């Protein structure tokens, strides 16, 4: 199953879990599985039309999924998605 890495600022929403192994053949399906597990993410991540919100960056390997096939980006067994958090501390 693909793995999704949770960035530190969002870990309070995942009971502190740093990464999760979730079912899904595409980036969108893995995000759906994450939102099913932690519904708080659904309103944070998605616009009403189902598109990802602009501040949500999902990375596969070293590439942004918007530079691949977006939510339809296919995932292979063992692929790791990363949620890139926007942080502001200095």
């Amino acid at each position, binding site marked *: 199953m693909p793995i999704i890495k949770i*960035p*530190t*600022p*969002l*870990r*309070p*929403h995942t009971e502190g879990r740093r990464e999760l192994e979730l079912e899904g053949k595409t980036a969108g399906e893995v995000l759906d599985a994450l939102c099913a597990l*932690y*519904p*708080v993410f659904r309103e*944070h991540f998605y616009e009403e039309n189902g598109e990802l*919100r*602009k*501040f949500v*960056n999902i*990375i596969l390997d*070293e*590439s*942004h999924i918007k*530079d691949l096939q977006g939510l339809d980006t296919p995932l292979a067994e063992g692929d790791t998605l*990363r949620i*890139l*958090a*926007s*942080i*502001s*501390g*200095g």
Partner: protein
Amino acid sequence: MTTLNDQEFMRYSRHLLIPEVGLEGQLKLKESSALVIGTGGLGSPVALYLAAAGIGRIGLVDYDVVDSSNLQRQIIHSEETLGKLKVDSARARMLGLNPFIQVDAYNEPFTAENAMSIATGYDIIIDGTDNFPTRYLSNDVAVFLGIPNVYGSIYQFDGQASVFDAKNGPCYRCLFPSPPPPHLVPSCAEGGVLGVLPGTIGSIQATEAIKMLLGIGSSLAGRLLLYNALDMSFDYVNLKKNPKCPVCGENPTITELIDYEEFCGVPGHHADELPTEWDISALELKDILANSNPLLLDVREAHERNISNIPGSKNIPFGELASRLSELDTAQEIVIFCRTGNRSLYALEMLLGAGFRKLKNLEGGINAWASDVNPMLPIY
């Protein structure tokens, strides 16, 4: 013509020995200028290393004064400069390290009103701010002036760094077109930061700035560095210029500086701009507790309760609040508190949205309670 004096030849000897720098490069650094936004965790190592490297003119923008809670990470300041203006504290330390440079101190917030006049004339901006509005502002100023913006950002054990050089690649807005909602991502003041983390990220920013000014090496332009101190991992994300970017894209819709605090939905510079209508003071809470029995809701993380606590309070960390609303009763008076009153205000907004109305926010948080009601408690 710029030259080095005998003392400078000796001082910069280790630079002069590197073929990629040499005398030509050192003279370039002396002729160049850099604007450092913020003299905090990131700004400290950035300003120190730029000063040591001999950047001829360094601008510092900050409006804060040195506080003892800064010294865990802001190593440009010291016990001796507590209470002093940060820009003055930093400037004195930089000139103590290298008297052959010019340091221009701007003791004011970096705002849409003054940013262009401050930044015009500098070769590069180094973003060491601690809030989203100023990050978007720094980015847009750099885009409009056509100069690189060396980005760094930190949270707990995580660091990010990149070079946003819109003339040759993506800008900050290409990656982050809009900020996250304020309640989703806590700030360092709320979530904390490992003291040495800004040392790592700030040093990377200084490295990138010096390379850009020298015109050597491969910069982080087009790449975002993700550092995690706990894992000691360095990962990269490839960044592309967004042709639809509102500020550096093909048809920009933002062509002048905007209201950044409104854009980000958060106050950039002054916590006192937060809404206060729900606030009660620590002394008012003391009176309330003498006469009634409201629920004291502590939205800090569980480990913070080992530092200070108000007996009888219920702990639901802010991040868990949305999924634990059923534990609360809309009919009961609820007084929400955290460390200083920010997280509790976000919690209050969340509860208002969920239909709760009998709400109060402890102004200044448990630190104010410690200061005004229970001096046995530490302030942290």
